[in-house]
């Protein structure tokens, strides 16, 4: 067959006559005879032509696709088969790699996050918490009622006596448009003003605070930090910053699974929170009614936006209410009526505060 060749040295065109044998093609290029084994040839389709090259070499040969097909039908067919086989192997390899990454991200990282959290030096966790708190104070400024804040601080200090933790439990009431409580790394526990308003008895508030303190003690907070770090970084890294097909889908799927604590961690914090209260002689009966009331709201169809937030980060409220009821023991109230009034007033803003001064 006839073809056009380039020698890989200059941009000149050589008209060549190509001979095809069962294992190679050959043609004369300048002074040299080119002998290309079929096993070394790579084929690139170009419309009604094909461009052939020998792996790792600059020379090129372009022939009519029809001629090449005729030649390839008998002898050069392995070239096309080899190409298909290589692609199949690539896709299978990538699929296995993807499955391994998913396994690592969704099984390995959560499994490793517990030991990693326990190995994290408390000092590191504390300074991480400082940074979080510094960033959070713009979104969730502390409530202005100093007396109420002092009482909450003192309660946090008392909780430490019943706990096995190197951290300083620092309870703080913050302004935020939702009913919720969260623990930061390093021992800070934030309670929103809406949650304080929602709590009907000191026992209920004490139960929530003890629950969050238990998350700190059990290093659940640090565990969540490691998990979200691992999930986010690995998925972002694999997928890259691009916006191409599929990339956003994968990132979205990753963010959905990033629940704050696992159910086991929540159950553990419930039980441990009650234990801490009991060890200090406080009532541990506040958790069940609080959870039941919020969940009841939802069942009656009253989906208040703030309450939904609490329920979505504290799942299975009714089940946990029942479980905690079984463990509940009566005890002293965590706050005196006077203290309770101060706490309730802590987030009510400036006017109430100045009148109580």
């Amino acid at each position: 067959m006839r073809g056009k060749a380039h020698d890989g040295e200059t941009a000149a065109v050589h008209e060549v006559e190509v001979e095809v044998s069962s294992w190679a093609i050959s043609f004369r290029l300048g002074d040299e005879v080119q002998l290309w084994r079929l096993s070394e040839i790579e084929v690139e389709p170009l419309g009604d032509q094909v461009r052939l090259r020998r792996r790792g070499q600059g020379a090129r040969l372009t022939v009519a696709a029809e001629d090449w097909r005729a030649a390839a039908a008998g002898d050069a067919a392995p070239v096309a088969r080899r190409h298909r086989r290589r692609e199949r192997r690539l896709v299978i390899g990538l699929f296995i790699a993807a499955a391994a990454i998913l396994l690592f991200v969704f099984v390995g990282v959560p499994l490793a996050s517990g030991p990693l959290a326990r190995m994290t030096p408390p000092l590191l966790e504390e300074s991480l918490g400082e940074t979080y708190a510094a960033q959070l104070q713009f979104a969730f400024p502390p409530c202005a009622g100093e007396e109420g804040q002092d009482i909450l601080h003192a309660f946090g200090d008392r909780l430490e006596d019943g706990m096995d933790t190197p951290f300083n439990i620092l309870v703080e009431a913050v302004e935020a448009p939702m009913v919720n409580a969260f623990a930061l790394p390093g021992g800070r526990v934030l309670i929103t003003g809406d949650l304080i308003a929602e709590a009907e008895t000191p026992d209920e508030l004490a139960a929530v605070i003890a629950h969050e303190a238990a998350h700190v003690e059990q290093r659940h907070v640090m565990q969540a930090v490691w998990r979200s770090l691992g999930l986010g970084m690995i998925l972002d890294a694999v997928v890259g910053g691009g916006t191409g097909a599929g990339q956003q889908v994968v990132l979205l799927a990753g963010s959905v699974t990033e629940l704050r604590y696992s159910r086991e961690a929540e159950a553990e914090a419930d039980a441990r929170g009650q234990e801490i209260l009991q060890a200090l002689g406080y009532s541990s009966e506040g958790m069940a009614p609080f959870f039941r009331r919020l969940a009841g709201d939802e069942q009656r169809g009253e989906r208040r936006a703030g309450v939904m937030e609490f329920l979505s980060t504290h799942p299975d409220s009714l089940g946990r209410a029942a479980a905690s009821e079984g463990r509940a023991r009566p005890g002293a109230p965590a706050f005196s009526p006077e203290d309770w009034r101060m706490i309730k007033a802590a987030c009510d803003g400036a006017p109430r505060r100045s009148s109580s001064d």
Partner: protein
Amino acid sequence: MPESMVAPEAAGTPLRLEQRAKLSSYLGLSLKNGLLNLLTLTLYRFWGKTEVRRRIWASTYLNEEAFEYSGRGMELFIGFLIATGLTLVFLLLVFGIQLLGPLAVLLILPLYVGLIVLIGFAIYAAFRYLASRTAWRGVRFHMAGSAVSYGLKYFGLMILAGVTLGWAWPFVERKLAEPLWANLRFGDRRFRFSPVAARKEKVYGPFALMWFGGVVSYAAVATFFMGLAMQPDFDPAGDPAVLAAIYAAALLFGLLFLLISLPYRAAMMRSVARGIQFDGVKVRLKIGALAVGWLYLGNILLIVFSLGFLMPLVQARSARFILNRLVLEGEVDFGAIHQSAESGPRQGEGLADAFGLSII
């Protein structure tokens, strides 16, 4: 065996560039790439991208001879792994600095400055990789010059654009194009970039239109938002109608800005093309604002309605659109062009890929 002979070709051969991509053939490729991306957690994208480039190059003809793209998916993949490693180091640094306390945030600032230099570096490295994997008649392109100095230049020019409130932007764009083309080589021959020729294309009129139009439409949208926020029952999270209005306004602003920037985009493309020279060949790009608008509109619709799946089709369409409007004036002696020993970088444009910067 019969003698081979060098096809007679005049020492001065005129040039004709033609992009013959059959767009319908990219539908199947788009589907294949998209599905394999989903199946492999998008790891297939490097090979998918390589196949798209190979096809676009192979359907681009200069004097009836197709270009050749010889890049490999594996090269892009390795480049990506390297970039990921570097990004990880960067993130760990930022994370570690945060542990030093709130004031340490000041230490992060220089890191972000470094990031801008890195973006320039990545653009140059990606261009270098593309050039080195492009050949025509078996002769490779390659890039001289340094990606680091391009990164520094990029940083300086971005600062200049910032302090001039954008008014230096046309100057910046030409300055950024210059090293990319002036360092490009085909075999042993060099491309040149003539700032004088590039400046013959007037860009400041269209730029002023874009700048003032941008400010005015931004002010209009900002006023709209202010009016919205002043209303007593303003609650963007709770009211879907308000949310929809916000998105609609943002979209409107985006489209409006795109529309008034079209004359400038077209003028800048013409200007850069006009600056490019090769062995006495001059380049002209015959493209106007309407044509660019048509190209962008089609691309946006294709991407939005296919959720990104038709990206390969969009890339082929863009290449065909622009390359077929390129006119090459002058003649070249191809027999005198020799291969260069330079073989280019070993791995792909990882950083550019990580920043979403590679052109195709």
